[in-house]
């Protein structure tokens, strides 16, 4: 089914008798991919209709990563040693003045990336690099290959098994450098290799490397000392170290997200804070935001660049204004989910789907919908089991009109 649509203004002109809002809804498609905490399955939900479209069986409960294009969702199953690719069924082509959405049934593409203990999966410019901690190996594959069902990867090895990360960065690969003295510890830097696997330049130091994100043309890694900031240099990636500001309290980010529409990074910082980072800023590169309770999860809004969301253990969802650098709204959604216990215990996770912020409530077996504009409850969707990790893909017909 192909649904070409025009921008809202163009629609209003072309179909003057119908309200544009209802048309926009007709022309939107949003899907939620929800991994269960207890069962090896991913449930696909039509976010607009509130119905379950399909359920895919995996080897074990997974963490999920969606591609930039939204065409692919990866289910990473660390102990089972496999990354399974799912075609979301939604593809979108931006033609500037209008866009085309293609909607098909979601399906397993047939691509499986196998190896010992896959962990981080990172996309850069349409190439995915899955890092296999148990081998210290990155397996790289393009989105085109994945959608075609191929499992043919190129491999790049590091010196030792590690809880690592790799980024396929144009003609180069950025690889975490294992800690040679303490094999169980986090990596200590980033090594750049060329297409032949030959090291380019020095290893950029990044003690306790954990966390990576892209926003616009910037790629960053989180270190105990600050961030590594990667840009396209002259012939090879250029890496600089941005130290944490002197005024920051003790702490570090270990999970980073990249802003969409605005260029910034959002990270955890201690148990009850988040940090907003603009690596290009001369002053206030790091802005700390205090939370009322310990943090459970956070997400950026890909539709409304001004906002990000944080869930805290008291069951509240907070709307974070990334421009003002403060919590703008809070909404009680679930029973408390204490951060005591294992990090991977079932707790709420956040995704943004069109006009809604969606929060999983694993112990109640449902998703909460919050209207992103009014920040009020907007319904629930029952999902059997313990709905836990969640990603959304889709398009709301919000084409940015360039006049």
């Amino acid at each position: 089914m192909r649904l070409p649509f025009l921008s809202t203004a163009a629609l209003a002109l072309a179909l003057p008798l119908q309200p544009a809002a209802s048309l926009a809804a007709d022309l939107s498609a949003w899907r939620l991919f929800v991994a269960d905490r207890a069962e090896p399955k991913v449930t696909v939900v039509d976010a607009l209709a509130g119905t379950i479209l399909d359920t895919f069986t995996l080897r074990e409960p997974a963490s999920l990563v969606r591609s930039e294009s939204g065409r692919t969702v990866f289910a990473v199953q660390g102990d089972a040693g496999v990354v399974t690719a799912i075609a979301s069924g939604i593809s979108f082509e931006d033609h500037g003045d209008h866009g085309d959405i293609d909607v098909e049934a979601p399906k397993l593409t047939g691509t499986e990336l196998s190896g010992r203990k896959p962990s981080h999966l990172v996309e850069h410019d349409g190439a995915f690099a899955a890092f296999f901690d148990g081998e210290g190996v990155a397996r790289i594959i393009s989105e085109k290959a994945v959608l075609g069902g191929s499992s043919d990867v190129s491999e790049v090895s590091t010196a030792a098994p590690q809880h690592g990360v790799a980024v396929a960065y144009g003609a180069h690969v950025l690889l975490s450098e294992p800690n040679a003295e303490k094999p169980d510890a986090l990596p200590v830097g980033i090594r750049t290799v060329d297409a032949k696997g030959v090291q380019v330049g020095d290893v950029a130091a990044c003690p306790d490397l954990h966390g990576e994100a892209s926003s616009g043309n910037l790629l960053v890694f989180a270190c105990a000392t600050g961030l590594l900031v990667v840009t396209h240099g002259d012939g090879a990636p250029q890496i600089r170290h941005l130290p944490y500001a002197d005024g920051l309290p003790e702490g570090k980010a270990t999970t980073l997200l990249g802003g969409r529409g605005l260029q910034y990074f959002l990270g955890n910082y201690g148990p009850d804070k988040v940090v907003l980072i603009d690596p290009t800023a001369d002053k206030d590169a790091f802005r700390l935001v205090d939370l009322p309770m310990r943090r459970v999860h956070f997400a950026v809004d890909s539709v409304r660049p001004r906002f990000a969301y944080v869930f805290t253990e008291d069951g509240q969802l907070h709307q974070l204004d990334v421009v003002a650098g403060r919590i703008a709204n809070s909404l009680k959604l679930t029973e408390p989910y204490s951060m005591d216990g294992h990090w991977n215990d079932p707790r709420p996770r956040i995704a943004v789907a069109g006009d809604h912020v969606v929060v999983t409530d694993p112990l109640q077996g449902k998703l909460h919908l919050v209207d992103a504009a009014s920040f009020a409850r907007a319904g629930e969707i029952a999902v059997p089991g313990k709905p836990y990790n969640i990603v959304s893909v889709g398009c709301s017909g919000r084409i940015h009109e360039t006049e």
Partner: protein
Amino acid sequence: MSRMLKLAAAVSAMTLFPAMLATASAENLKVVASFSIIADFAKNVGGDRVDITTLVGPNGDAHVYEPKPADAAAVAAADVVLVNGLQLEGFLQRLVEASGTKAPIVELSKGGEVLKIADEPHPHEEDDDDDHAAGEAGHAEGGQHAHEEGHHHHGEYDPHAWQSVRNAEVYVKNIADAFCAADAAGCDGYRANADAYGRKLGALDAEIRAAIAGIPADKRSIITSHDAFGYFEHDYGLAFLAPEGVSTESEASAADVAALIRQIRDDKASAIFVENITNPRLIEQIAGETGLKVGGELYSDALSDAGGPAATYIDMMRHNVATIKGAILGS
């Protein structure tokens, strides 16, 4: 140590501009300029009644700029937002949305002589525009017809209108209008400043024409990195070729580069230049393959920093003309 150095630098800046600091106040008009050339125009019109925040600074590339939360905060707090328009600022819409600003967004190229993009044919474009423009019932199926894959809609117009000094005069007039609308009490001053600066621009235009007149007609073809000089070509009679199109967003194709190299080898170019906003590598490569010597650096879409040769718009145009002339006549 580094803090003390910074403090010292700040103090010396203060002593250099005591008048500006003395008059800057909360009463001043808060102006956001999308890039450095517009900021210079705004400074000339606004004088000490305006505080200007520049989004894309010296040597920055507005085509590919990524707006930051601080930019959204500046736009949110602005009384007037000055932009080029013609799709130069691809980031504008999302920045304005994120800011939630109520300030007028003023497109300074409006009312200027605007050039269509010449050498990029878009066969569907006319049809599409007709569909969008026509509101009549006959187009009720407009939302349903199929669109071909790979059809990309770029800007229809060349955004680099400031490379014509006559257009720069229009920008300045538009700024004065915008400032008057936002600050009626300062209007007489803005108009007087705009007139005075406009006379300087008039003289600059004449100066450029005179300088170009000294270049032989068969030596007026030059190479730059991207198609930023269409207006300069149109107004002053030089021919510019570039491996990249009117936006730096898409990289030059190998075929475009090969075609350009063939043209140069057929003796179609007298000089080649790097630009301040783009990586010089491609131009250096083309120069190396064709035996042309890089004739210097042109300032296309941004000023230099304060200590550079193009710290103001007038200095930028003079520097470009002198650099072009020097390279052609020196060769």
